[in-house]
């Protein structure tokens, strides 16, 4: 099938020859393979903003123009595919007449000379009449299941036999099967959408607006013959639309029925890993006498009205969360609030208004924990919720707070994860839990530290008690100075932590004094903090603090020292929840699926016929000689399994000799089994 530079041929013929040529087909196979790589290296169909950040505006635009964010829908990619299919089709059309001839023609008129040039030949001189030789040859062929045709030449007779025509069927089945697979895929493709977009009838929506407000040109009717999209439906709610993602936007596809999610479940193995995801669905359709109730799970979709409903994923469906807002700054009020995930709430602060955006709720948080023996174990850290706190300037910080205290080093802490952007790693605030497993003591201590009256009271008590046993006892002026600095240092500590105090010292003292001053100030601050803590304990009725109380004190100071970085005026504690889950459903209508499967079956059968059936031919050229002798010229060819055919050919020659010339004396035999090495490989044509 080589393309010949024949200028006499018209353009159409030359084009067909080019398109049906083997070099083009192989080139297209390789080009398609290489083009496919792009879409696996570059993650497809991400938000366009992500690409812009990754590549910069210049390359972002170039890649967008090339369609690299959705390669497999890009015009150029579809053209390569189309070329391959056209090339395959033309190849089939062009080769079919020749193959049909191959199947039908026995080539019984083959010349003696050409038979002698075949790869497998042998010739026998036999002491048998020609009719007897022909009869034997016929039997040998029929025993092997060959089809045979005889031909009467001028001075000879020829028997031409062949077998294994299924090999040619292998060619048709594989190549036509591939074309059918492609056509089936085309039925399910987004080509109609692309054409609609190109004509300007369809326009993907890029705004984040309620589905009901999506304009008509971004909506597809329920009669659309193929689609594949998804929708998240909270438990107890229903939907009659799905969303089809298109580049950086989406289309709304209407469904011919309404799906209600009654419940969504995750079942777990004993190890905590998920075992199954399933949804109880109700299909509401006016064509149904009563709503259809069923349960779907991963690997077990529901097929209804030519569509299939799959369990694709799951998430929160707007869980209700009860919260207690505990102020970290004394000037902010303490509040209780109940809200739902995906909703926003305005919070009034002292000097600034905040917006609380609830973004997620998780019932289980299974995290790896390294135990004392060094083993990694999965541990459930219980429910958590995630929210953003946005200030008046619009800046937001994201928090993930766990509902229950988590044991770390055998002590319980309330944990809150903080990050400014999703790209940052989470940092954690550990608030120690008191003996009742609550945050009460921590916030009591914090409130006392921030309360000037309490702070001064505690500072005075400690100072006087200390002064009384020193020489300075009764010196009010010194006492007041000490108390003042205690209050002042505590305030600095509260507002900016240990770091803040160090910064304050370096700003006010020459470098050579910094170390001494820091030591002195730290002593004073420690005394003040301790005195406030002891006051707190007294107010709680604890007279003699235990070791655990001092441990709590250290943990509290660690937490307080980190507060200036926390960025929120409240610690928002989850006190209760009502989980509502959402089931992520994928709904598809793919009329081409069975077409693709049909083509796949053809392809599979074809591949085996093509590789494992050999098209074999054997010729018997029977020439009468004088004295009732006969010359038998044997020739054969096969297009697969050359080695096996060579063995068969040798065996056949031997069998004929055995039957027709049992004794060597009866006939002289010249044997030229094959024209070249048996070990040679198959030759294609």
């Amino acid at each position, binding site marked *: 099938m080589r393309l010949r530079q024949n200028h006499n041929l018209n353009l159409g013929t030359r084009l067909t020859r080019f398109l049906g040529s083997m070099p083009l087909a192989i080139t297209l196979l390789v080009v398609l393979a290489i083009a496919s790589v792009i879409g696996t290296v570059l993650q497809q169909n991400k938000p366009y903003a992500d690409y812009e950040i990754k590549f910069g505006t210049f390359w972002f635009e170039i890649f967008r123009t090339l369609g690299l964010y959705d390669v497999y829908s890009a015009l150029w990619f579809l053209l390569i595919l189309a070329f391959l299919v056209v090339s395959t089709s033309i190849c089939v059309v062009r080769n079919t007449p020749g193959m049909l001839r191959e199947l039908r023609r026995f080539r019984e008129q083959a010349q003696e000379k050409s038979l002698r040039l075949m790869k497998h030949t042998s010739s026998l001189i036999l002491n048998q009449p020609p009719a007897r030789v022909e009869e034997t040859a016929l039997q040998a062929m029929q025993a092997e299941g060959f089809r045979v045709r005889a031909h009467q030449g001028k001075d000879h007779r020829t028997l031409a036999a062949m077998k294994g025509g299924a090999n040619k069927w292998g060619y048709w089945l594989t190549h036509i099967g591939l074309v059918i697979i492609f056509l089936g895929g085309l039925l399910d493709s987004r080509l109609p959408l692309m054409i609609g977009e190109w004509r300007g009838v369809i326009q993907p929506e890029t705004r984040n607006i309620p589905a009901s407000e999506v304009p008509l040109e971004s909506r597809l009717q329920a009669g659309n013959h193929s689609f594949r999209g998804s929708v998240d439906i909270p438990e107890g709610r229903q939907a009659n639309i799905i969303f089809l993602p298109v580049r950086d936007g989406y289309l709304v596809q209407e469904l011919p029925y309404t799906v209600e999610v009654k419940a969504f479940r995750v079942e777990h*193995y004993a190890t905590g890993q998920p075992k199954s995801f399933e949804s109880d669905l109700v299909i509401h359709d006016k064509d149904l006498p009563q709503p259809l109730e069923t349960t779907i799970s991963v690997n077990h979709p529901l097929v209804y009205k030519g569509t299939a409903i799959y369990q694709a994923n799951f998430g929160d469906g707007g869980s209700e969360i009860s919260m207690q807002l505990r102020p970290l700054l004394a000037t902010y009020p303490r509040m209780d609030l109940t809200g739902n995930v995906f909703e926003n709430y305005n919070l009034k602060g002292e000097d600034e208004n905040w917006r609380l955006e609830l973004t997620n709720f998780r019932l289980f948080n299974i995290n790896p924990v390294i135990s004392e023996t060094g083993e990694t174990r999965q541990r459930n850290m219980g429910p958590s919720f995630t929210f953003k706190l946005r200030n008046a300037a619009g800046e937001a910080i994201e928090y993930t707070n766990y509902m229950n205290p988590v044991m770390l080093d055998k002590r319980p802490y309330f944990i809150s994860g903080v990050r400014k952007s999703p790209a940052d790693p989470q940092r954690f605030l550990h608030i120690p839990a008191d003996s009742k497993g609550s945050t009460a003591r921590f916030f009591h201590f914090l409130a006392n530290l921030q309360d000037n009256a309490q702070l001064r009271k505690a500072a005075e008590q400690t100072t006087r008690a200390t002064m009384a046993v020193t020489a300075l006892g009764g010196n009010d002026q010194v006492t007041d100075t000490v108390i003042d600095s205690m209050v002042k240092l505590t305030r600095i500590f509260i507002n900016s932590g240990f770091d803040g105090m160090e910064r304050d010292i370096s700003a006010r003292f020459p470098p050579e004094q910094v170390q001494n001053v820091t030591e002195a100030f730290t002593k004073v601050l420690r005394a003040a903090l301790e005195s406030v803590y002891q006051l707190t304990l007294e107010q709680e009725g604890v007279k003699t603090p235990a070791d655990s109380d001092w441990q709590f004190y250290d943990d509290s100071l660690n937490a307080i020292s980190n507060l200036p970085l926390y960025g929120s005026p409240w610690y928002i504690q989850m006190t209760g929840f009502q989980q509502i889950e959402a089931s992520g459903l994928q709904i598809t209508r793919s009329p081409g699926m069975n077409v693709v499967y049909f083509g796949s079956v053809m392809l599979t059968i074809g591949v085996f016929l093509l590789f494992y059936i050999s098209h074999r031919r054997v010729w018997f050229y029977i020439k009468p000689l004088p004295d009732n002798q006969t010359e038998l010229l044997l020739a054969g060819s096969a297009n697969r399994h050359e080695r096996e055919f060579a063995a068969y050919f040798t065996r056949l020659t031997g069998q004929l000799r055995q039957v027709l010339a049992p004794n060597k004396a009866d006939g002289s035999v010249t044997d030229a089994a094959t024209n070249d090495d048996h070990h040679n490989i198959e030759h294609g044509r």
Partner: protein
Amino acid sequence: MSVPQHTMQDVFARPGLLQRLNLRDWLWAAVVLAGIAYAFASYHSAMDAYEQSFLLLSAPAVLALGFYWRSSQLYVLAVALLSLFGIWLYGGDYANGESVFGLKYLFSSQSAVMWMSALFFLATAFYFTGLVSGSEFINKTATAITWTALVMGLTGLMVRWYESYLIDPEFGHIPVSNLYEVFILFCVITGLLYLYYENHYRNRSMGGFVLLVISAAVGFLLWYSFARDAHEIRPLVPALKSYWMKIHVPANFIGYGAFALAAMTGTTYLVKQYALAHNPSGLLARRLPSLEMLDEISYKAIALGFAFFTIATILGAMWAAEAWGGYWSWDPKETWALIVWLNYAAWLHLRLTKGWTGTHMAWWSIGGLLITLFAFLGVNMFLSGLHSYGEL
């Protein structure tokens, strides 16, 4: 003179498959059928329709394999008996794996796999020693060691299947669900394919080269097992709980195994060619199989691999249609399967229609293995997508 009619028919009539079978074949078939019938009678009530049909269809499949390739008869028997022995030693208690000698040192899945690993290394060494020394005895020993390794490998997988149910009936699954398990499968299938061709072509001199790729897989397996505790049996994620897994994965690994074999015969081809050019009277030039034979084995392996890879990809598409809602999503794993398929399709076209053979095709078969390797491992390691079960 004339030969009586019936004698002539006797000469030409090729005996049918059934007539070529001898007593040993029939006895073996009876044992296989009895075993499967017993399993069906005892356990059919615990199986669903798919599992029942798999069990019943395994009978003609095993019989056909055994009749077509006699060496596999003993293999099937050995694996069945040793697996049953291992299961019997467990006696329904997983803890026995640590206390019973026969399990701890031989037939618990982990021990069996360790034996397989060691024996594959040993067989590689024996094949190369046989090549250098030219000793037929050493070569035959290498073949025997390879068979033993294969018995231990498949027995290990069978026992592991049982162990997964023993740990927790809810965990139970066929051991083709993660990278550790499919690497064992890869070693076993590649080894079996090699032994088939070794037997068919009556040539052992390329064994060392083919076993190199298996040894590399074993090396990875050992690292993966020791460094990452990969041998631990874990429950299936919901997406893998499907009968498709039982057929999609093994079909894929027949493809991968055959492609690996083709690449190694391609390597041997290049070695032989180099030896012929530089040292025509040397050991390698004299003892390695002829270039034609190596080329032919490469072709046969690629054709077989291509056929099974086609089936595996189609089965994968059918599974995807059921699990992900679409038979083709251009997911990285799917796309790389297509790339592998296109690559070998191009190879086969050139071979069958243009008659290309020799050096270029040998290099290409090695390149093909690299592409296959990326589709098998690289996609899971470097690209993210739906098909993320075999992560490192």
